[in-house]
């Protein structure tokens, strides 16, 4: 099946693009908008912060997000389940919908998810009717707990947020994929198109990318590169990779060689 004909379901929402993108760190909102369009994404993350009362009329981020693209508010910056619940409820109160990217940090230098409060918050958000996409450490048992708690997607980090180091442990992603039935989205750490393609080729359902696009020398071109990489990786996964072999195997016939001198 062509990737473009497949549908990815996250709770009640459906996506044909398997590339989710963030909206942070762009040099300008025009550049962000152009990158979003080039990426072909149907889901973008946003953060919730205080209005600047000294400049209340500044343009809204939402004005630069194409209308067909769904908004995924995050709980970035939260360190407890209580904080995350409050941010999620505020986001929903703004009228944006019930999707939330749950992010509860337990260690600031690594921006590593706090497994205990992430699990608690997942339970509470799911019970409150949110469609919860959960940023998590790449732990297979935690992923199973998160699914049981009501996560609509589990999103293991490939490597630390913003590090661009790629998917450091593909086995970890596979272990999670084998143990949960909700979508597995590699979130965080993608640095280049090869990383995105690898994540998809091993069977991730989608990837979420921010810094690798926003901080590329040419973000719009990188957005397109990521789109192609995600499609290539997904198609490669569907096509079924050959098994690695221990020795060489000639691709050309071994018989019918011209006579040697």
């Amino acid at each position: 099946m062509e990737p473009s004909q497949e549908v990815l379901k996250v709770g009640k929402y459906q996506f044909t693009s398997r590339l989710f993108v963030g909206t942070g760190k762009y040099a300008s909102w025009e550049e962000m908008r152009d990158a979003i369009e080039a990426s072909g994404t149907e889901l973008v993350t946003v953060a919730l912060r205080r209005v600047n009362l000294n400049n209340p009329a500044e343009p809204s981020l939402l004005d630069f997000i194409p209308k067909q693209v769904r908004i995924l508010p995050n709980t970035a910056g939260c360190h407890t389940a209580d904080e995350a619940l409050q941010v999620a409820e505020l986001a929903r109160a703004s009228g944006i919908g019930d999707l939330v990217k749950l992010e509860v940090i337990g260690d600031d230098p690594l921006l590593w998810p706090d497994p205990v409060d992430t699990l608690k918050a997942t339970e509470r958000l799911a019970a409150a009717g949110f469609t919860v996409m959960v940023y998590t450490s790449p732990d297979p048992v935690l992923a199973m707990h998160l699914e049981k708690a009501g996560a609509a997607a589990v999103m293991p980090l490939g490597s630390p947020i913003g590090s661009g180091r790629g998917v450091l442990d593909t086995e970890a992603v596979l272990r999670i994929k084998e143990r949960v039935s909700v979508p597995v989205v590699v979130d965080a750490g993608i640095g280049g198109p090869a990383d995105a393609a690898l994540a998809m080729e091993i069977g991730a359902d989608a990837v979420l990318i921010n810094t690798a696009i926003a901080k590329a020398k040419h973000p719009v071109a990188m957005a397109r590169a990521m789109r192609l990489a995600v499609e290539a990786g997904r198609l490669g996964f569907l096509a079924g990779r050959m098994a690695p072999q221990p020795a060489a195997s000639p691709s050309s016939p071994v018989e019918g060689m011209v006579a040697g001198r």
Partner: protein
Amino acid sequence: MQLTINGEERRVAEVDTVAALLDHLRVSHQAVAVMVNGAIVARERYAEYPVKERDVLEIVRFVGGG
């Protein structure tokens, strides 16, 4: 009247509702969320939800993030 808005004490004109306060602050009602004394105010209730002397408010909106 005296309010605490987004962590800052501010003296503002007398207002009686969240909607009136947003107008006074020239903050668009679209795509913002408001909390008064820790309680989240649904958008549909801005026009009726009371703002009183010394209330503590949070007014938030969406920004770029990953």
